[in-house]
């Protein structure tokens, strides 16, 4: 019996990987406390596990709440999304990877484009040409002085697109969560 319950807690813990270590310990500790309480009342391992539900689902409930109620972007939360979609089934395996990867890519590019343009502007001011770092429209190459403000605008648009994709990601998690939530 002991063994079965420990295996259960270990599985919950594994599914919670993207959360911080102390948070995981705290979560598992609290579930363990309830398990011991239930055992004290004479419930068997099978009944206890049935009551708590599949370890993946229990862990997914924590992850979902951490993502949805705190929807700002961070690497840790991206990890939570990845873990959640691995638990949430097929729909999540297609939609969430696409939207979360696009969110990160757009945000990165949004930061990178103006930074590159600034570098290229600085280079041209001291008289160096960097042929692989230019703003090009068809065959016409923009002069660096003009490329910089254009790049800032493009960068902002990309950042907005990234934030938008992140919102789609969080929205999808919420949707899947509501569907699966049975009180």
């Amino acid at each position, binding site marked *: 019996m002991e063994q079965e319950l420990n295996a259960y807690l270990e599985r919950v813990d594994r599914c919670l990987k993207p959360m911080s270590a102390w948070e995981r310990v705290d979560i598992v500790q609290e579930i363990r*406390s309830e398990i*011991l309480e239930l055992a004290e009342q004479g419930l068997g391992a099978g009944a206890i596990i049935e*009551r708590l*539900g599949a370890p993946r689902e*229990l862990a997914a*409930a924590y992850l979902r709440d951490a993502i949805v109620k705190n929807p700002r972007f961070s690497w840790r939360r991206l990890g939570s999304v990845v873990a959640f979609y691995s638990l949430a089934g097929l729909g999540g395996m297609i939609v969430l990877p696409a939207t979360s990867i696009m969110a990160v890519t757009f945000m990165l590019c949004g930061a990178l484009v103006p930074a590159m343009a600034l570098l290229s502007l600085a280079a041209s001011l001291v008289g160096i040409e960097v042929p692989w770092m230019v703003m090009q429209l068809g065959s016409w190459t923009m002069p660096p002085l003009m490329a910089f403000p254009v790049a800032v605008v493009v960068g902002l648009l990309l950042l907005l697109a990234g934030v938008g994709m992140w919102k789609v990601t969080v929205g999808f998690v919420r949707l899947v969560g509501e569907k699966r939530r*049975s009180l």
Partner: protein
Amino acid sequence: MNIDEWRSQIKRGTLEFCVLLMIARGECYGYELISRLEKRPILAAKESTIYPLLRRLLREGLLSSAWRESAEGLPPRKYYTITEQGRRYLEAMGAEWDNLLSAINEIKGG
């Protein structure tokens, strides 16, 4: 016509209120809350609902928690207490709740 769906919507909307009300009357641990809610089928909620909800209320600063040893032979428990901020929030919730009830009564009484 699915009354269960409507019931679960009501539950979803009021569980936070109920949990805060219970903790405001005295510190509780998670399993205690769950088993007290279980006695009222309209409010019964699973572990996978209550524990994440408690974590969120902690994160938002409405509750605080402490691990404490309990009686001999029993495991340590995580006790939740309401904070000052939680009390203010609960008061506002209570006012809205009374609002809702009197509005519904007015409509029903037509």
